[in-house]
């Protein structure tokens, strides 16, 4: 085998290994971004989701002793009950947007392992409960990533 062929073979092996690692990484850690109504339409239990919506006013139940947090996320067209173990983050509140990461459990609620609500220099609370406000809000939350 001449030098060039060796070179190409070596590069090929590395590229293939990288491609495989990326492929495996993506399939194992892909998280689907959806809204409550989309989740309602086709819930798949066990699949990793990022669910974004507004925390329905009056739905938040926080038990400090057991660190159990329950609330409902809505996108105006559908709503999903969410459960989480841990203190609600600072930006979390009724009537505000939140993005939660976790999965749909067979018992009929969303189990969130992470609640994301991060500060941004242009964060604005949405006005009204339907339409573009939601999209903008979710976008802001998505863009600003997460606090954990």
């Amino acid at each position: 085998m001449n030098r060039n062929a060796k070179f190409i073979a070596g590069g090929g092996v590395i590229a293939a290994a990288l491609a495989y690692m990326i492929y495996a990484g993506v399939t194992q850690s892909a998280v689907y971004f959806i809204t409550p109504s989309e989740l309602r339409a086709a819930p798949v239990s066990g699949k990793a989701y990022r669910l974004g919506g507004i925390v329905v006013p009056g739905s938040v139940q926080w038990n400090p002793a057991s660190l159990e947090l329950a609330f409902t996320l809505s996108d105006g067209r559908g709503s999903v009950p969410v459960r989480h173990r841990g203190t609600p983050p600072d930006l979390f509140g009724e009537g505000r947007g939140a993005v939660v990461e976790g999965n749909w459990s067979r018992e009929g609620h969303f189990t969130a392992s992470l609640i994301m609500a991060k500060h941004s220099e242009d964060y604005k609370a949405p006005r009204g409960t339907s339409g573009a406000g939601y999209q903008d809000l979710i976008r802001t939350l998505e863009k600003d990533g997460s606090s954990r």
Partner: protein
Amino acid sequence: MISDIGHGALAVGTVLAVYGSIASGVGARTGRPALIESAQYAALAVFTLVTGCLLLLSYAFLTFDFSVRYVAQQTNLSTPFYYRITAVWGALEGSILLWTWMVTLYTLLVVLRHRAQRDLYPWVLSVMLGIAAFFLLVMTIPAPPFERLTPVPLDGRGLNPLLEDTGMITHPVALYLGFTGFSVPFAFALAALITGRVGDAWITITRRWTIIAWYFLSLGLLIGGWWSYHVLGWGGYWAWDPVENAACMPWLTGTAFLHSAMIQERRRMLKLWNISLVILTFSLTIFGTFLTRSGIIASVHAFTQGSIGVFFLAFLAIVLLTAFGLLAWRWDRLRAEGELDSALSRESAFLLNNVFLVAAAFTVFFGTVFPLLSEAMRGVKVSVGAPFFNQVNVPLFLSLIFLMGVGPLIAWRRASVENLKRNFLGPVLVGVAAAAALHVVGVRSALALLSLGLTVFTTATIVLDFSRAARARMRAGSRFLPAIATLLLHHNRRYGGFAIHLGILIVAVGVTGSQAWSVQTEATLRHGEAVHLAGYQVRFDGLSAEEDSTHATVIGTFTVSNGHGTPTVMRPSKKFYPQESSPIAGVDYRMGLREDLYLVLGDFARDGSQATVKAHVNRLVSWIWIGGLVLTLGAILAIVPDPQRA
């Protein structure tokens, strides 16, 4: 008033930068030094104007001039003096202004330092003024820092409280000095392509510039991590956030370039690769800004909302097309003069290092834009989080640590068995022994053992090389300390590099330790109750409240004891700012070499009877910051003028 002056100065600056860019190019092409000289004056004038704008904006901040929209957005009457200065670059418009100022500063420094250099220099000046012109254009159209606000409000909105931190003075400044610093090697690379002098001159000239840019970028990343760790209150320092990734990508390719440039200097190989890497690194700094500032990460559809994204994308397209167009045009001259002799050689170790660094950069790129790709192609938004980045990058980074040990010691061209044995047998044994010792002590994580074993191996190669050289000096009659001093000064490049490697290795230990052994817990405590974590007892002793000019604070008092020594009191808090709808966490932590205890106050009862606390014991995190200091010393050593060659 300020608005008008600022707008005017930026408009004049734009025109002058465009003029200078064209004049310098035309002057070089037609051989008219007068034109090049006029471009130099243009560069000086642009720098002066942008400096003036920066001072003017700072003045507007200091005097609460709310007729400037940006000032009204970023500050209010209660913002303290100190943070009114940092608020200047607290958001988009001001950070573009700071960025532009740095580009013009670098341009001026290039003029001062290299104007005697006749063939590349005029084109370098032309390219750098072209870059400055773009940023000035951004400030005249999509992101004007001096935009007027009418009617003038009585008070401003106020600074994002998260930015009220000392890290915010240094982090953006360091990061941008790094980003913009890469415009110098980029400009030299383009000049080399334009003039056809694609030999080693541009690499040799830009070596120091590249190290400076690389160093500031590293510092910016580290300070960013520090800020995230002690302000954001989630217990970590790096989250593979798009913003972090944007800064990480040029760092990876820039690091690759630093190394491959040495191969070109020494062996006249990799010419094409080096120019490509510089183009890539510079483009990634622009791409990073595009990514974080256009809103495109949120959604492909958000992209059209502001015009700034279009500007950056257009500029990026121009940069890439021009640069790779020139590269194709000069293809013939970019053939390597040397070639790879053996897989066991310093060249191939460096080459492999480059391949892994670029692969890591590609991984970060892919993971960051993945949501966009999936949304654009399949209509569903799928993102990949930290697990993806860790899974793919950890093997790459571990390989890089290994190569960091191999590269500097292995022989050029072809390493003999003798050479390998002489340089690596000892370090390999030390590394294996260290891993075995850690296993005996109780470390069970295979990844941690591998990572620490490799780190020890690479550290051993550095120690071996240094002690060998010091002993040679001492045999020549020098005493211990003078031997070390002359070694460091006369081979500052080599040992500066080693010190930087040592800094990176210390950071690696910190990252490994914090990933492998950090623990956390969360509990709601009534007055007098305690939670236990990793040998610590954290007892809740009540809440108190304080108020100052900008915010009110609720403070939890916790008494912490770890079985020995006197108990200490820690006070994590929650800060409430009138302009913000939510509180901000005030983390309290005790740092140590072994571990940090890190407390975050969560929810609390208004009567002070109970509070929820999150406690983290983060292992070896301090090593990351110490590594940053070592890296700084190494970078300084590497850029001081060489007494022998200067």
